[in-house]
């Protein structure tokens, strides 16, 4: 399942599961992530799963690449069951104020705005990974008709709550952040809760996300 294993710097292992981004490859990544958490190899400081890669950081005072590499290759993942997919519903307001890029998308994709939103809301999305900033989910896949590259010049500040799309993916900006994704709406719901340290994320890898539209009034009165 791991196609290639190499070092990333002197204190991380880079596990490559292939070039493609599919749910199958991603669920293999997640199985290794779970397997490594269970095995508690000495010296590991972080494990970062992504679409098709897994990066294991370690404390160079405790272990070296050659030693940890073999321990990783010994991990058995056959008996690891991924948790059942949870369905998470996320409210989105598409008021003009929040749709920073829908007009641009409309021109580039040659689709009217209503049609773009319709296609976007009519699909369920799989969460491949979380990160970049705290709790940001990377979701997919968006309909082929909506796929477009990132902005050529990324925004210095994307507002908190923004829903972005680029290529085959969608995300949610859990904090104000620089970013280059096309913004098509905003959610008032809290995605990352630092006070809930056992379970800080609303959306975890493997979850299914359904976006639904709310009005500006509902957005402004959102209370949770």
């Amino acid at each position, binding site marked *: 399942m791991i196609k290639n294993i*190499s*070092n*990333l*710097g*002197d*204190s*991380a292992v*880079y596990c490559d599961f292939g*070039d493609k*981004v599919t749910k199958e490859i991603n669920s293999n990544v997640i199985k290794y*992530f779970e397997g490594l958490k269970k095995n508690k190899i000495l010296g590991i*400081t*972080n*494990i*970062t*799963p*992504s*679409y*098709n*890669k*897994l*990066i294991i*950081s370690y404390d*160079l*005072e405790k272990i*070296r*690449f050659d030693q940890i590499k073999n321990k990783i290759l010994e991990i058995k993942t056959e008996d690891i069951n991924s948790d059942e997919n949870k369905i998470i519903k996320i409210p989105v307001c598409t008021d003009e104020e929040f749709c920073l890029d829908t007009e641009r998308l409309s021109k580039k994709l040659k689709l009217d705005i209503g049609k773009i939103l319709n296609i976007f809301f009519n699909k369920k999305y799989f969460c491949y*990974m*979380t*990160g*970049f*900033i*705290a*709790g*940001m989910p*990377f979701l997919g896949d968006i309909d082929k008709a909506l796929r477009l590259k*990132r902005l050529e010049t990324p925004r210095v500040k994307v507002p908190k709550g923004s829903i972005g799309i680029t290529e085959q993916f969608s995300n949610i900006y*859990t*904090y104000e*952040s620089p970013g280059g994704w096309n913004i098509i709406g905003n959610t008032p719901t809290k995605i*990352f809760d*630092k006070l809930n*340290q056992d379970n*800080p*994320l609303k959306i975890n*890898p493997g979850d299914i996300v359904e976006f639904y539209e709310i009005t500006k009034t509902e957005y402004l009165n959102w209370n949770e």
Partner: protein
Amino acid sequence: MSEAYFEILRAGINSTLQDEGRFHQYHIGLPISGAIDKRNYLISNHLVGNKSNTASLEFAYQGPLLKLKSGRASVVITGDVIFNIIRKNSEIEEGVCYQTFSLNQDDQLDIISTNKSVYGYLSVQKGFKGEYFWGSCSIHTKSEVGSNKGKKFSINDKIFLNQSEINHNSKKIDYFNSKIEFIRILKGTNFDYFSDKSKKDFFSKEFTITKLTDRMGMRIKGPKIENIVDTNIKSEGLIKGVIQVPSDGDPIIMLSDHGTIGGYPKIGVVISADHDKLVQLTPGNTVKFKLVELSEAEKLFQLYNLETKTILDQIK
């Protein structure tokens, strides 16, 4: 007895509480954070008799002006730092780094600036009182996690100490923050995405540290690094020291508060032994990179670690 605390009369540019950092949370999007110059952080804590993972005040460039409003404190400043102690009777004493001193109620500490470097540390006996998230009180401003509601300190904030009475021991060490000529690099996982000329340039030409540098990352400028394969990769995990090259050809080096995943090709990774020296380079400084092999990087880290231990062992 009332709690000892400092009041901030001037915040400085980037004053935060830091400990050794927050581990095992990359997968939810939290970087390790923690003291960015680990050796200076450790020395400061050991000088005041603290355990290694105690919260210190980290500052950058201009430091804070602090007034001890209550209690007494045994303190030390490390780094290459210019500071004054302003006693209650207005007498001014010139501060000396790596040498402990005591502060009484209403004394002030004026941390004027770091000298030809970026970061410095203030440690107090028994440490500062932090708020803990996932085992660390380090402030990560981007996600508003850590002490002080995850924000850098501002004027009128209070920083509480864990103890209000002290048992002051005069301690000092001689330590010199040496400059580094080369930053040593391991090949990145996308090394072959770059043209032969750019690979050569990267290890032979000078790069300048730009002003767009903070705890998240360091942007450097030199010859443009030309990508001949793809300027984006599928987003994947990052670690401190990774050098990403976006499509504009100007490298960015990930530092302690880096985003946990990124989608730009990685030309190299700074070896762990050179992190502390790298982060102290100021905007305008130039740097050259030198390619090393993994086994050499591992040996250099052992050497760095042994040096740190030797310094800490001198403090008794």
